[in-house]
Structure formats: structure tokens, C-alpha cells
């Protein structure tokens, strides 16, 4: 059986999804014997710029450098698999994409020499072809293991695209929306987390992103009729808010957050630090 050459790289992200690989404590050594981890800066000093049989990509594209990098990486990878909400949907930082607001643009552009940053943080598939994706913020260890197993066996991984609700009910949890009035996005959200949040008596906030047939309009109407308090739009302005089914409502919420008024919190004397130093 093949010993695939695996690469793990990151774009803009928190490192949590690649850490999930190291969190497969029971399988890690076995994986090390069956896969060749040729590129994984967080875990090894060995480096390789390819070719890769499979390349796991974490994070969203948010700098010009990354935009070029991902195209080169794609060319050197037989299979490219995006892991996590940042790579598959843009992640929390994609909320800055409603950056036509003056304050956001000002925040990003004034000194391009110091910060290289694109106006938008976007998922990998907006730049290159993606062969498979693992959803989640962070990804689920079980799904990662299934992906690696399928890779090695040479079949397509079994990654269900059903709603969170099924697993929630299978586990015998009582619906936090119907019985608790919590604004749960489970019905619209792709499963994989094991219905985690309802299990902790709170509403699902869609960190695995929209499932196929996500009827945002219908649930949105219902929640708006059912509940008062913070608006419904903001529910969608989360870790997968840039995903097309959620994008419109997330955008409405972002315009309401009034970030234009954001105060600088760094003390005034911080700016002359450069001269202090040298």
C-alpha cells in the first residue's frame, strides 16, 4: 500500500486545525509510519517544497504573498485538501471583507510597507481547485482520521453533509431551539462536530458552515418572529459568515456593528517605538 507524501501548510489561521493532527495522540506514531510528513513546519524542521501526494492547507488567503503561494503549492500537490473554516469559508477574519467601511480600509491600507494584507480574506477554493474539504472551527479529529485512512486505502472519505440535528437527536439531546428557544443554527449547519454545542446547552453557531440545502431564509424568518433581543443577522456573522448562504445576512450584521468608531487602544507613545529602539 502506498506511503503518501503529505504536506501541511498554513495561510491566515490560528494553527488549531493542523494541531488537530498532533492531537491524534493514539494514532500519531502509526500515521508517521504510514505517511511521509515531508512538510509540516509546526512539527518538523525537515522541509520540502514538493511534490506532495496530498497537501493539507489551513487558513484563508489574506496577503498577496499567500495568493501567489497557494497557486504554486497547488501545482505541486496531487491532491489539495482544505482543513477548517478559514480554508473552506474564510474563517472569522473574513468578516473584514465587508471592508468598504472607511475605518476598515483605513485600518488595512495606510502603511502598505509594514502590513502586507489583501482587502479580503477568502477561502482557498476562490483561488485554486480543491479536491476535498474538512469543515469546522476547528476540524474534527475523527473526520481527519477518516480522510487520512481513505487517502491511504484509496477511496473517497465518508464525510456526511447532513444537518447537525440528526446527530443531536441520535444522541438523545433535547432540541435547544424548540424546547429552549435558543437561536440554534444546527438545522442549517453541516454535521461533523458531534452536535457539540446543543450538548452543552447552547445554540449551534455554525462553525462547520452551511450544509447543502441550507434554508437560511426560512429559519431566519422563524427566528425573527420568535425572539427579541440581539438581531438574527448577527448569528450568521460568525466563523463561516463569508460562506455564500450566510453572506448576505452576515453582511447586514457587519454594517450594524459600527466598527468605524473603534478607538485605538495602543498608548500614544507606542508609535515612536522604532526610534526608541535603534
Amino acid at each position, binding site marked *: *500500500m502506498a506511503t503518501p507524501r503529505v504536506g501541511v501548510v498554513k495561510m491566515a489561521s490560528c494553527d488549531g486545525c493542523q494541531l488537530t493532527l498532533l492531537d491524534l495522540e493514539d*494514532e500519531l506514531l*502509526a*500515521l508517521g509510519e*504510514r505517511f511521509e510528513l515531508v512538510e509540516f513546519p509546526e512539527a518538523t524542521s525537515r522541509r520540502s517544497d514538493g511534490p506532495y501526494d496530498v497537501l493539507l492547507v489551513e487558513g484563508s488567503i489574506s496577503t498577496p504573498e499567500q495568493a501567489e503561494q497557494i497557486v504554486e503549492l497547488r501545482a505541486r500537490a496531487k491532491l489539495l485538501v482544505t482543513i477548517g473554516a478559514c480554508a473552506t469559508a474564510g474563517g472569522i477574519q473574513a468578516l473584514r471583507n465587508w471592508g468598504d467601511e472607511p475605518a476598515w480600509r483605513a485600518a488595512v491600507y495606510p502603511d502598505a510597507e509594514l502590513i502586507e494584507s489583501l482587502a479580503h480574506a477568502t477561502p482557498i477554493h476562490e483561488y485554486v481547485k480543491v479536491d476535498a474539504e474538512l469543515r469546522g472551527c476547528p476540524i474534527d479529529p475523527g473526520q481527519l482520521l*477518516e480522510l*487520512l*485512512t481513505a487517502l*491511504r*486505502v*484509496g*477511496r*473517497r472519505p*465518508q464525510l*456526511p*453533509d*447532513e*444537518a447537525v*440535528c*440528526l446527530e443531536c*437527536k*441520535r*444522541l*438523545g439531546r*433535547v*432540541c435547544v*431551539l*424548540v*424546547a*429552549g*428557544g435558543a437561536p*440554534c443554527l*444546527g*438545522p*442549517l449547519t453541516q454535521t461533523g462536530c458531534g452536535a457539540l454545542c446543543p450538548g452543552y*446547552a447552547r445554540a449551534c453557531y455554525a462553525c462547520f458552515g452551511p*450544509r*447543502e*440545502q441550507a*434554508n437560511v*431564509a*426560512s*429559519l431566519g*424568518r*422563524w427566528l425573527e418572529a*420568535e425572539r427579541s433581543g440581539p438581531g438574527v443577522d448577527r448569528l450568521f456573522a460568525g466563523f463561516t459568515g463569508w460562506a455564500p448562504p450566510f453572506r448576505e445576512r452576515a453582511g447586514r450584521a457587519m454594517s450594524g456593528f459600527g466598527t468605524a468608531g473603534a478607538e485605538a487602544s495602543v498608548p500614544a507613545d507606542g508609535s515612536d517605538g522604532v526610534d526608541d529602539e535603534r
Partner: protein
Amino acid sequence: MVTAGGPVFLPRERLDALLDLLHEGGRTIVGPTVRDGNLVLDELTGVDDLPVGWRDEQSPGRFRLVPTGGSRVFDVVNGQMSPKQFVFPPKQPVGTMQRDADRAVRFAATPPDPPRLALLGVRACELAALAIQDRVLAGGTFVDEDYRARRESALVVAAQCTRASSGCFCASMGTGPEVRSGHDLALTELDEGFVVTAGSPAGERLVARLPGRPATPAEVAQAAADVAAVRAAQGEPVVIEGLRDRLMDQLDSPRWQEVADRCLACANCTMVCPTCFCTSTAISSDLDGTVNVAERQWDSCFNAGFAKVAGGNFRPERSDRYRQWLTHKFATWVDQFGMYGCVGCARCITWCPVGIDVREELAAIAPPTVPAEQMPARPAAATPGRFEVVTLRGSHHETPDTTTLHLVPSEPALLAGLPGQFVMVEQPGFPSLPISVSRFGPDELILTVRAAGPATAALVAEGPGAQVGLRGPLGRPWPVERALGRDLVIVAGGIGLAPLRPVLDAVMANRDRFGEVVLAYGARTPSDRLFTDEHAAWQAAGIELGQIVDRAEPGWDGRVGVVTHLLDRRDFSRRPTIGMVCGPERMMQATVAVLRERGVAPERVFVSMERHMQCGIGLCGHCQMGPYFVCRDGPVFSVGELGELFGKEGV
């Protein structure tokens, strides 16, 4: 003490005595209890676990528990969970499959090991639901052994309803409010205690040992009145008369789209439904692909993957899926099992996140008209249901993207299959998949797979001697016997020739017993044609072979066009003719139309339908098409049987 059989009055403070009796013999008592502010069904250790002083407040999409201040135990009509949770668990280990170092494969089915249950507080509608599950899961040719074992060992203590929730419509469905059958004991709660009646010999033995006294006529009358009042408390009745036909006449109603605009396809209605029985079996394999661990879990017709086959999804739209669900509950269920699939418990109404009310949808889609007679449940095709080990003898490419596998079974029964049947094949590392048998050899099964993917590739790579698991032969075969003494026109498209080759084998073996035999074969290109090395022999045996391809290739001087061109100038009306058609659904539709026009009645034309088959024995629900499970009632159907389902979108 207590006169046998008669109703007994059990004082409220002695309810513990009943639980003690139920606990005897190490039974687990399962009943309603309040946990973290929610009503759940779970193990009860004592009376204190019961939802004393609570009642429910339900409306579409909303459920709340409210304190009553009283001491009543059974005021909560019903919650999210039904006994299904315990007699048909959401997740159930199926077994393991393993390939050893010596390349032998072994199966280990997980033996049923049911807890001995006492179900306490079961409502009339839930008793009816158990009866339906008995019919579906344990009343057919194939039985869910785990379910049967759990049911047989379970004691059922019913609680008569003295309240109705806003959604209840058991009276309409004829399942309540009165508890009639299926129980060992039935309790009716009065202010001071319970009127207890027995519904079975086991129940009578328990009643005899209860620390109660014979119930007074007044108490019995009061109990009956309280339950009867529930009937009146239920809302607008759902008109059941003729519902099946009314629904099936409305497959094109615009309301399906309208409800789909509200429906989330989140599957909650099917998860909370006490009768929904659809499941999927997922395998997890080890890193080396040598061990499969299979687990069966609840699935739903609202999921995208549910009706998906390699080529696409038969029910891509929410409207398709809602129609599938509603018509199954209230129409095709009747065809399959002779009963409705709904008991009026209102769970799908209360627990729908957006409050879709099935009663309203029924009234809007299929308004009451005339009564209709019930169709009988159709008999299941009889085929084996257990995995057997077979060994790969060899394989070869029929065409660039089609592979033929020669498998030698250890179990001779596997060779006794009939033309048109299929087998479920499983090997370590891969989920099992259905493959049609292209020949039943004297000592081997021959399978032909189109566009062989990783599973076949892996098997072929294993090489001769590789073992795989195989269930079957499954499904209803081609009616070869009906073609004896008649003319036979066989129409195959692409890979569709594979399941038809056994028919040709039968014809070759008894050529003189058939009349004219015509084989019309359409393929994508000349080099995509299957079994070309046998064509000459077929022709020599007097089988008229017409071939036509979509795209010619250099050197091809045969026909180019569509398979119907081989038929639409012919006349089959002169002698009784049987048609057998297999290919893509669109091709079969065109062919059936031409055959009808050329004199072969739909009742005499048979087609092999493709749907998402998973269990292969009519228990998992994936391959449902109208009143049929394609794997069990088909895959071969007469066009007459299918009626308007044939070629209908989204069924």
C-alpha cells in the same frame, strides 16, 4: 385480595410497588423524567424520577415544561423521544469484517444483546407506533433481529392520556386516545391514584401482585370519561378516508414547492417520528484497510446523500424530499404495509424548528374527497441476507472502463441466483456496494462493473485469491419464464447489458423454448460494447442482434444513432412478445414508449430500476420508489406496475 382480570385501583403513594415489580429480574425501567429542565425518556431508578407536577405546553415549533403545582405523574403528554429510542436504537453496531495476513476475510456479526426493558408511561399513539414497527421491522421476510429481541423481552406499561397537546391527532389516525392493545398494563391516572388494567397474561400476573384493591365502578367510569374527554380536546380532525389516493393524485401539486420554501430539510421530523425506520450503515476502516467496523444509524429521506447514486441524486430538491416523506407516511406506507405510517403523536409538528404542521399540509395538498380501498402489502422477494465469503478467481477489462470479476463462493446457494438479481459486495476498507451479476457460472459468480472505481481497483490489485464478502443474490429477477413460448425483445443500453446476459444464457440453454429473440444493444462507442466475444455465438443461436452506437469510431461501419432506431420500424403486435429493458432511465423511457407503439403492452415490458441500494433487503429505506423498495420489490418491475412513477422526477 384482587379478583383476577378486573381493573385495580393503585393508590398514588403505592406507585413504588409497581416499579419494584417491574424491576424484578433485573429489568431496566425506561420512562419519562426531567433532566436539566428537559423532558427525556431514560432509565428510572424510582418514583421520584417521574415528572411529578409537570405538564407540557406545545405548539408548532415550540415545547415548554411548566410546573402544575400538582402531584400528577403523567400530565406531560409526550416529549421529543419515543420508545423507538430504546427498541430501535439510533446507533447500533452491525459487525466487523477483517482481512487476515493469509488474505482470508472473516465476518463477525454483532449478536443481539438486548437489555430487558420495562417501558413505563407508553401512550396509545406510541403503542400504535410499536405495532407499526413490528410490522415493518419484524413482520416481513427479513427481520431486524435486534429489534425483535428487544421487543420480545420488553414489558409495556401504558399510560392513558388524560390531556391532549395542541398537536395531537391520534383520534383521526384511529390510534387513540384509548389504549386498546399492545400493552401488558395500562394505567389511568385519577387524583388519588391509578386505575390499572391488564392487557396480557403477564400483565394479569402483575396486577394480581399489586398492593391495590378492585377499582370501584365510579373510578372505572371516571377513568373512561377522562380519557374520552381527550378525543374532544383534539383539534380539527385529519380526514383519513381516501387519503392515500388523494395524495398520490397530487404529486404535481404546487404546494410541494410552497412547503419546501419553509422546510429546512433538517430531518428533525423523521428523527422524532416514532415510526420512521430508515437507516444507513457506515464503515470505519483501519489505516491499512484490513478491518471494517460497521455501525448502523438512523438516517433520513431529507438528507442529500439518501437517494444519491453515482450518477446523481434522485431527489435533489427539498420539495422532492418533503413529498417523499409525506407520501410515504400517508400513502405508499399503506401500499407497503397495509397501514398508515403515522400515529398522530404530533412530534413532527412540535419539533419542527419552523413549525410546519403536517395536518395543514395534508389539508392543503389533498383535501378530502372520496373514500378509497386499501392496496394489499406486496410480498417481499425471498433472498438471503447474510454475508458469505467469496474468492476472486480472476478479472479482466471488458472495455477501457468496465471490469469483469470472477468470484468463487464458498456457499453454493450463491450460485442459485436468477437473471437480473444483484449482490452486495463488501471488502475491507470500503463500504459495501451493489453489483449486478452478469453470469451465474457452474462454480462462480461473474460480476461486471462499469467505470470501476477504487473499490474494484483495490480488489483487482489484491489479485486472484483475494477474498471479499458477498450478500445475495438479491432482488426480483427478470421473468424469464413468462417469455417461454413467446417472442422476446431484449433492449440494453451501455452497462445495462450486464444484468441481461444471464437472460441470454437462459435463452441459449433452451433456445427452442423461446420464439423470436431480438437483442437491441446501444452503446456509447463501438469500443464501449460489452461481451463482444460472445456476439457471434448469440447470433449463431438465432438471436437477432442489432447494435447501434452514439458515436462512431474509425472503421465502424455499423449503425449510429439511438437504440430505439433498431425498434421503431418493427412490428411486435403479431405475436405475444415480452420486453426486457435495462439502461439509463431516460433510455428506458424512450424504449418503453417505442415498444408500446410497436405493440408490446406496458404490462409485458420489464425494466430494471436504479436507486440508492444499501441494505439490499428492504430494511434501510434508501431505495424507496413510491410503494416499492427497489432492492426488495425490484430491481425488475413491469412498466405497468410502476405506472406514473416510471420516469417521474424526484421520486
